[in-house]
């Protein structure tokens, strides 16, 4: 019975391989549980006019982005111009989801940092955010023509993410019939 002495070595090899794999991953970035599922329904007042409502219907019929943001979110400031660039380059409308914010703050923020959104839905309680599986701000969802979530970016969109993932995905979804 001499062969069992190699077992510890084998365990180590497995462990090191696994940990090495772990190093290539970002543990804090989670894929959305909603990928390839219909966007959760919502019915929220818009920022511009509290009496007007925007619903999931707005996501039907065209490829769109949903960007979750708030005026208290520092990372959103830098992201704002990038979101504008994406709409400019792809023509995809962005629906802003103003998450747990105060109306005056949000309105002022848009005048200061620019308004890349076609419409801003106000989720003051964060209830819709929970339905969308929003953990932090900013988060960005890609929704296709059928209103199905196809991609999600957690945190501020980086230059690389925009060029290598978001824009190609948006273009591909747009060109699909």
């Amino acid at each position: 019975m001499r062969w069992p002495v190699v077992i510890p070595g084998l365990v180590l090899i497995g462990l090191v391989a696994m940990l090495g794999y772990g190093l290539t991953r970002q543990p804090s970035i989670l894929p959305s549980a909603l990928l390839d599922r219909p966007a959760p329904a919502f019915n929220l007042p818009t920022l511009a006019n509290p009496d007007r409502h925007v619903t999931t219907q707005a996501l039907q019929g065209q490829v769109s982005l949903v960007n979750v943001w708030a005026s208290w979110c520092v990372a959103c400031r830098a992201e704002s111009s990038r979101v504008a660039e994406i709409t400019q380059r792809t023509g995809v409308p962005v629906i802003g989801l103003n998450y747990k914010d105060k109306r005056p703050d949000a309105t002022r923020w848009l005048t200061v940092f620019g308004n890349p959104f076609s419409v801003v839905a106000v989720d003051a309680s964060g209830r819709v955010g929970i339905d969308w599986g929003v953990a932090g701000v900013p988060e960005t969802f890609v929704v296709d023509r059928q209103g199905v979530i196809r991609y999600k970016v957690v945190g501020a969109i980086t230059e690389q993410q925009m060029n290598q993932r978001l824009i190609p995905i948006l273009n591909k979804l747009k060109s699909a019939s």
Partner: protein
Amino acid sequence: MIPELGHLALVLALMMALVQSLWPLYGLAAGRPIYMRLAAPAALGQFLMLGVAFAALAWAFYVNDFSVVYVADNSNTNLPWFYRLGAVWGAHEGSLLLWMTELAAWSLAVVLASRSLPREVSSCVLAVMGLVSVGFLVFTLATSNPFTRQFPAPGQGRDLNPLLQDPGLVFHPPMLYMGYVGFSVAFAFAITALITGRVDSAWTRWTRPWTLAAWVFLTIGITLGSWWAYNELGWGGWWFWDPVENASFMPWLVGTALIHSLAVTEKRGIFQSWTVLLAITAFALSLLGTFLVRSGVLISVHAFATDPARGVYILGLLAGVVGGSLLLYAWRAPRFATGTEPVAVLSREGLLLLNNIFLVVAAAAVLIGTLYPILADGLGLGRLSVGPPYFNKVFLPLTAPLVLLVGGAATMAWKRTRPVVLTSRLWLPAILAVLVGVGLPLFTVGTHAVVAVAGCALGSWAILAAFEDIVRRTRGRRLKLPRQIIGMTLAHVGVGVFVIGVSLVSGFGGERDIRMRPGQSLTIAGHNVTFNGITAQQGPNYVAQVGTFTLRQGDRVVSRIHPAKRRYDDSDAVMTESGIDRDVFGDIYVSLGDSLEDGAWSVRVYNRPFVRWIWAGGFLAALGGLLALSDKRYWRRRRRRHEPHDPAAAARGHARREPAV
């Protein structure tokens, strides 16, 4: 200038470590003892150099030298001086320096305490430890130099992480690291055994005190950490099964198994290759812990700022050190003489075999639970979390039998024990344990839940069986017990005390999470808690909102406690300081939540019965280890020259021929 001196000292320490490791190994391989002699002075030199480096960093903190990046990132002129000193090991680079300094200290301790060892043994041990030092020194100098400067120097530093601004921080990491690093000595002895091919009772007698010492440090470190988390995190919990906690718990479990298997190997000359493997594993798990804390593969409350490059290096170091050892093990271990002595189920070695199985499987369970999220992700099974509910469920069935075994520890004799001896000695403790198990939960926290009853019965069984042994040994005569026996007894009593604490604190405490306005009160566990109000206080580097709560039992004022919320000036972080009414039989724990409208606060009040027993158990166990360590059997043969070193005796690996114990 001083930081550069520290940097230079680090480089010199690396040189010393190279000498400490390579020369003796060459001497050993070439049969030239003269080279082996270099190990001891090199170890001394390495320690001195690391001491200089450590002092240089501490000085930079003391004088607020913010041109040193590490100081600027982790200190602040408003930070009290003792926290500035604690900040030396408050983040990655400095804690690595602490780790290496302690490793060098253990090397030095080996030099000082092992004069009676054969030169090839002591120098081989030092060489192995030197190799580990080389790995960490290169790592530090290449990726984590604590002395890096920045110009221009900022006028003020960022603050030390407020979570760490607690007296617990000053003592917890050094103790924990002493334990982690201490297992390197047992590891080095194991490698030496593989190289020299000797695992006899002399070897175990050298290895045991080192293992015990490391275990004592680790036990104290973990206990302090738990106590600190209880005081500082504000949720009334004492153990969170966080990856970083698990990282310290795994080596502890395997180290505990090692202590027991060393006893078997020493007394009976069996399980040699198992013992050697455990010694390697204990240190391997220490290294794994280092990796988990510093690489960022897992999310933890306590993890350091993460950097994949560091992760890759430590993983390489882990693979190299442990892989090399296991290769050596696979090659040499089959040569160890396997004992032909019988092992009976009803014998101390049988008992300790079971002890080892449960401890090692428990450690494996912690490992599986900690790393499973990575495995699941790698196998494409999705992202999942493994948390306290998993560990609690899996751990209970693995450790309950262990506590049952503890009760038999003193009664079970080596080689063989007749069942009648066991029953005649243990029936009384067993019956008493059942009575205590039913009575204690009922009369203290008023429950008869199975977990509480079983836990208290098991805990008191461990305590009572240990006392039975002491009473029987000392009855009728004034016999001076060897300290090793007293130490073992104390450690096992510690286990019992701990188990009772654990089984009563969880689930039966009760907690309230309510909104309180000044003047309002609530009742918890027979105590009336009144919220008197909040006052603002200015600390050295924070502003605190300090609440006052009056605790009454009937009309008697038991105590006034002051939970607080501190907002630290520099980081703007808010920390909870819990207010605790401490009592042997339970704490009332109050922590402030948020300030709500019209002067109300959200307040959490916890009743934590027997929570002190958890740390008392830990410290008792450590004290027991310390007492066993001071047993003169480890020290008295210092004067004599080393054991007869004839290969024949070594090959037989017999313990009994030596006039020991």
